[in-house]
């Protein structure tokens, strides 16, 4: 059985950054495994701009961002396989993969970095009744068909979900000649970035319908219309507010879920809230020698943060391989307090000479004039004021490592109204 020091599963932005960083930290024997026919992951179909402002101080399109990493991987001579799907990993770090070129192969690794990204939630998960005609797409699939394959998916489109993917696709469809009837949000605000509401909807006079959703899809073989309904504060449909809207295409942009089927095969424990692996501040999972980074851990908004996080994973995987992973200086578990959806990492160990710890979190509700309160046990160790918070924007909270040393208390983050 062939053995590698480091195997990176996934050749998108997370996997590429992790592999490159591992090599920069002295690991030579690396293999990146990618199931698609080229590296770059989802960025290759994200042809819009908005990437790279943090990492490169430039505004790039998805493919431009990806190419920077692909070129660097090539320059560093890091081996990779494409059109190759990992079908199994074990807690002993044996990896089975399949490809047309090699058939069914099992290899082993000293360390693994999981970078499999995420997948979209579907219509079925949102339980919309009616018929099951053609013309119903996840936004990502429509994006692939339009951008990579060059096909139009419909003429008159309604989009459920006001997250960035839905907003971006509203513009894309319009530019390619479709009529976008509207973008629906079940809540009272657009889930995506405000800039995208401006440049994707306002610019093209595409209506953003708040507190509305689709309850039914009609059409014998192809979508013919949808039934819209208003939602009340409890996210319940308001009877009598139904409206039938003609269209031939429905796009769903209703959330992303980290793809962790492989992680579970290796007996890695997942966080119920993030649906990604439990990780510590080195991006290590709870299985020795297996690290994770990027959307497979928690869904990110901005790829630059995926890259930063993945560098962390790559660097720490390198140290693990070199046998220089230190001893824990703390055993602090993190806990989402009032108003907080989740926190990554779920555990802080301080095994290297970290000076700071970065916590990533999302709030559960939109709010203004709030503060994040970080407590270790009962003691408040940090407070940060924020003008405006929303679940659709991930927040970073930096804590001094010294505050956590030798502690095994619970670190809680909560969000409260300022002046309370």
């Amino acid at each position, binding site marked *: 059985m062939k053995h590698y020091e480091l195997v990176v599963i996934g050749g998108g932005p997370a996997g590429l950054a992790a592999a490159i960083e591992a090599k920069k930290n002295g690991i030579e024997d690396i293999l990146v495994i990618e*199931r698609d026919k080229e590296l770059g992951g989802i960025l290759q179909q994200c042809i819009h701009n908005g990437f790279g402002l943090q990492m490169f101080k430039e505004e790039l399109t998805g493919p431009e961002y990806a190419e920077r990493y692909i070129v660097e991987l090539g320059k560093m001579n890091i081996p990779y396989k494409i*059109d190759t*799907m990992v*079908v199994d990993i074990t807690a002993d770090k044996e990896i*089975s993969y*399949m*490809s*047309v*070129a*090699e*058939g*069914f192969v*099992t290899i082993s690794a000293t360390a693994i970095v999981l970078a499999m990204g995420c*997948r*979209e939630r*579907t*219509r*079925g*998960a949102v*339980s919309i*009744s*009616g*018929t*099951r*005609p*053609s*013309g119903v*797409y*996840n936004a*990502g*699939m429509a994006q*692939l*068909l*339009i951008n990579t*394959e*060059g*096909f*139009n*998916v*419909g*003429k008159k489109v309604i989009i459920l979900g006001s997250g960035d993917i839905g907003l971006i696709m509203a513009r894309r469809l319009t530019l*390619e*000649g479709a009529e976008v009837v509207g973008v629906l949000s079940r809540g009272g605000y657009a889930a995506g970035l405000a800039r995208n509401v401006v440049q994707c909807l306002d610019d093209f006079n595409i209506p953003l319908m708040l507190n509305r959703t689709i*309850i*039914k899809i*009609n059409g*014998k*073989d*192809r979508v013919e219309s949808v039934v819209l309904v208003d939602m009340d504060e409890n996210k319940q449909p308001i009877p009598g507010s139904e409206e039938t809207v003609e269209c*031939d295409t429905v796009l769903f942009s209703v959330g992303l879920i980290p793809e962790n089927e492989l992680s579970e095969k290796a007996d890695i424990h997942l966080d119920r809230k993030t649906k990604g692996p439990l990780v510590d501040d080195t991006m290590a999972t709870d299985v020795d020698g297996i690290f994770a980074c990027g959307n497979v851990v928690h869904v990110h908004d901005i790829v630059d943060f995926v890259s930063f996080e993945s560098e962390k994973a790559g660097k720490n995987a390198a140290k693990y391989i070199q046998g220089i992973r230190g001893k824990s200086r703390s055993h602090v578990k993190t806990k989402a307090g009032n108003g907080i959806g989740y926190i990554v990492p779920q555990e802080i160990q301080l095994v290297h000479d970290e000076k700071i710890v970065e916590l990533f979190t999302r709030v559960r509700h939109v709010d203004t004039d709030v503060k994040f309160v970080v407590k270790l046990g009962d003691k408040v160790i940090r407070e940060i004021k924020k003008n405006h918070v929303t679940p659709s924007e991930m927040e970073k909270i930096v804590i001094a490592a010294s505050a956590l040393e030798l502690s095994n208390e619970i670190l809680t983050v909560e969000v409260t109204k300022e002046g309370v």
Partner: protein
Amino acid sequence: MYDVAIIGAGVIGAGIARELSRYDINVALIEKENDVSMGTTKANSAIIHAGYDALPNTNKGKFNALGNPMFDKLCEELDVPFKRIGSYVLAFSEEEVKTLEELYQRGLDNNIPGMEIVKRDELLKREPNLGDQVVAGLFAPTAGIIGPWELTIALAENAVENGVELLLNHEVLDIKKNDTFKVITNEGVIETKYLINCAGVFADEIHNMIAEKSFEIKAWKGQYYLLDKMKEPVVNSIMFQCPTDKGKGILILPTVHNNTLIGPDSEMFDDKDDVETDSDNLSFIQEKAKRTVHNLPMNQVITSFAGLRAKPSTKDFIIEEVKDVPGFFDVAGIESPGLSSAPAIAVYVADLVKAKYEDLKENIAFNPIRKAVPHFMSLSNEEKQALIAKDARYGRIVCRCEWITEGEIVESIHRKVGATTVDGVKRRVRPGMGRCQGGFCGAKVMEILSRELKKDIKTIVKDRSDSYIITGETKEVRS
């Protein structure tokens, strides 16, 4: 001219076709849609009933009892997934236990083996997730689950391999008779000596084209939820609730692919083409199902769907030669337990046709064995390697939720009765059945269909002929 033409390629029509292909006669299987198994067979509970439920001395009772034991051999011959997992009818009160006792007695009258009434304590040992109100259950060990469209596709494939001609996209518009039958379709006239009506919810309309009206078929819709595969099964056997006159209650059961199915409800619909789901009905199903298992993991729902059953006005299967139209056979009103009865009905109807002949020769080339497209991920590692060595396309995974390879998809297209649509591929080898519901693999399946069938990808449809997917190419000149 054909010896026998069968209208309707669902599990009944395909089953009869296969039985007739044992003989040296020309058989045509006529289907109006673009694939087999597109009607009731496509959307039902997938249960092989033990057979206690139907009244003795009815066709339902007789054919269910005969059909159930035939499935082991049939599914082995055809390589179709089938598991005898047993079923329980649950009583939620002492009153309902009386109904269990009635059903038990009826089971004895129908000669159904191995039945017993199991009290709560023992029941919970076998099914730990059952709700607080469950008092007892009637256990029938011979009940099973099957892949209904897998079965129908296998029956049709084997029938065609053995000489039956499958005529898809042929809608029957009218039927005339002189000495022979002239079946007038949208694709021309089919002449046949004998004609068998297996037209599902449309069987009365077909019957009325050539015979005096003698029964009515009403379409009764049942809606379902499908849950994702989970580490721990919700239930191990089929869970019925005490029956009412509207049906067998809301079921919870595993599928042969380890999903969980919840439903169906039962409501009559005028439109025989209406298979939409309705949120009120779905809520009703959820509510009722929770009596069986309280904390149903509804966050694991991956899709919901509806199917129609053909409810006959006679309340029983109609399987007979029509007296005033000799040579025309009705096989109508095949609602539950239709699937369970299918093999027995097929043999019986074939015998009715056989009786018309003085000396019917056997088809010496008849081969009852049909192997399914290999399920790659079930193979051992050595077998996987060998298969990839034979056809490299088995090395590429296309469906990531169900781990289905390109080789399997290509094979499913090139078989007799091969897939020509996205859902056709889905029903044969499963891409699109998983939690992403085709979101990841859909485009790839379309590409493969286009390449293998040498058809423009823009003409590839999802399911029925009008379910177009792509509306054109980007950068086309706009008017």
